């Protein structure tokens, strides 16, 4: 401690000078993170870019790290280098066949020309703000050309690509590149369209239910008819051995069931010539 005090006493001026120099040096240095690009602006005019985005540069070789600047004269503007997001508010879009659809979309973009971005928009947030209405209108325009059905299915891919191109064209003005546009949701709007969809679904189900019931009836009928055919075949195979005997046999059974029930009030008028009464004549 004593030594330090002595040093301070003796080298006061030198120490202060060293501190001032250190501070000055530090104010000349600026750390640029891997996720940032830095535009060095000298008196309002961009002079150079540090860690600019290049498509195939690997991290660590991009130029991030410490950079120099002239204090007071040069200003460092940091611009996000990562992929950023613009979300579109939910909005109703009318398809080519006049159906309404509620659409929610997002776009992903990246600032590839920070100088241009700085000059036109200023900040990344402003770029997103500018892109949002453009995304809205491009989307509306593109989806309006297509039918409701095609919006739902595979054709969406092509539509999205067209929207991306349209938006990208505008985004280049702000030094940004649109990487992807995607529809998050495409829903029927609340109210009448949704209700009618529900009704349609319900009636389709009811129709399905009716069809299933009818199918069941049909199957049952077929099963019965097959059984009857089977029975007829069985009978025929058996009875066909002697049709005459069958006739007799079955007639006997039939007489039994028709006349021989207890308490039946059948009256018969028989002629003595009847076969049954043959022996009456004593022959």
């Amino acid at each position, binding site marked *: *401690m004593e030594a330090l*005090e002595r040093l301070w006493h003796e080298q006061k001026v030198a120490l202060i000078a060293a501190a001032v120099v250190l501070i000055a040096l530090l104010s000349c240095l600026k*750390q*640029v*993170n*891997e*996720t*940032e690009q830095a535009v060095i602006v000298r008196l309002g005019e961009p002079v150079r870019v540090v860690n600019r985005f290049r498509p195939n540069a690997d*991290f*660590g070789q*991009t130029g991030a790290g410490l950079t120099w600047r002239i204090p007071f004269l040069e200003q460092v503007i940091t611009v996000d280098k*990562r*992929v950023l*997001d613009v979300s579109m508010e939910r909005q109703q879009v009318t398809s080519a066949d006049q159906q309404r659809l509620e659409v929610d979309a997002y776009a*992903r973009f990246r600032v590839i020309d920070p100088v241009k971005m700085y000059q036109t928009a200023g900040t990344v947030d402003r770029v997103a703000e500018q892109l949002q209405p453009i995304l809205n209108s491009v989307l509306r325009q593109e989806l309006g050309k297509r039918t*409701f059905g095609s919006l*739902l*299915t595979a054709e969406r891919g092509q539509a999205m690509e067209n929207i991306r191109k349209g938006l990208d064209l505008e985004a280049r003005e702000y030094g940004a590149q649109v990487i*992807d546009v*995607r*529809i998050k*949701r*495409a829903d029927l709007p609340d109210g009448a369209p949704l209700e009618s*969809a529900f009704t*349609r*679904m319900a009636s389709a*189900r*009811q129709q399905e*239910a009716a069809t299933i*019931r009818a*199918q*069941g009836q049909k*199957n*049952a009928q077929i*099963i*019965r008819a097959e*059984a*009857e055919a089977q*029975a007829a075949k*069985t*009978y025929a195979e*058996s*009875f066909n*051995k*002697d049709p005459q005997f*069958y006739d007799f*046999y079955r007639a006997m059974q039939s*007489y039994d069931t028709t*006349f*021989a029930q207890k*308490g*039946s*009030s059948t*009256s*018969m*008028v*028989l*002629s003595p010539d009847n076969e*049954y*009464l043959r022996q009456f004549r004593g022959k």
Partner: protein
Amino acid sequence: MSSFGERAAHDGLSMAGGKSPWGGTGEEGKASGSEPGAPDGDSAPPPPAPPSGNEPKGPRNPWLPPSSGGSGDRRPSIEDIFRKRGGGGNGGGGNNGGKGGPNPSFRLPQRPDGKSWTPLIVGAVLLLWLGTSMVHRIAPQEEGVVTTFGSYSRTLKPGMTFTLPWPFQSVSTENVTQIRRESIPEGDSEKLMLTSDQNLVDLSYIVRWNIKDLKLYSYQLADPDQTVREVAEAAMRQSIAEVTLSDVIGSGRAAIETSVRDRMQRVLDAYRAGVTIQGVDIKKTDPPTKVVDAFKEVLAAQQDAQSAVNSANGWAQQLTARAQGEAAAFDKVYAQYKLAPEVTRRRMYYETMERVLSQTDKVIVETPGTVPYLPLPAIRQTPPPSTEGGAK
């Protein structure tokens, strides 16, 4: 907090003694016991005027030349910083350079051999700084990225590693093997999606993902977690829009899960997000609540159809069994009949006629040419005895 109590005691002591801390400029050595500077817990406001008549000099500027305050002015300010660190941050460190200065008489207790503790404390802090910012223990499920002045330099694998200390290199670690789960939608709300046949289905699902490449994950996307959610949503809706409602509710689930996963992976790879989608699991596919009844109706219809078929089957069994039975009976009788046709036939005839005629009213009209008057309705109730008698 022992230092706090100690200090309070010192305060009391200094008050009792009525000694001014700003008094004797050259006497810090003697006044080492009294520590008046910090009015409890708050060193920010200028200390109150001391009760003694000595002229208060106010806060001292440590940068001032030492002639006014003596050599003690510098020393306590450094010690004060350390004391505050140890004391849990009462007053913060923001004003050490200026108003924290006026603690000229505070001094750490000396070591047994009479030397100052200061070098040791400075050494310990230095060691702590280097230790925490140079040595990194990466847990088995973690990885870490090292940045040199903000620029990426390498990725740390699990284990002990060393880097340059803090202002030069810094490390941020992240759990890369842990499977993160995103449940969409959150909660139990109904989420309706359109299918290709323009029906709506209420669907909820889970996306499982983890970090594949920490470097890309850290630097490529502004908000990777949010991006995963949004991509999941877009991919799921697109996949659902390609299949029909019955596929979604019925057999097509596994195919949808695979196609959503592939689609998500493709999009995220295109973003170079450094994320692997482990899987997409559809938790629930239900018809919208408003049409649930109609869907139940379909189930009921299926039951009805099944029961109609079942009862028809039962009836059919009965019918064929009876036919077989009757045929078998006929066959048996016929076999016997073949052996003695005439006798069997007669026997059967008489037996049947017996049964028949024993149960019926009989009228036998003998004389040819007589036309019997048959009061048919009357016969039915009470047979007329005349005809009966005539018959006999």
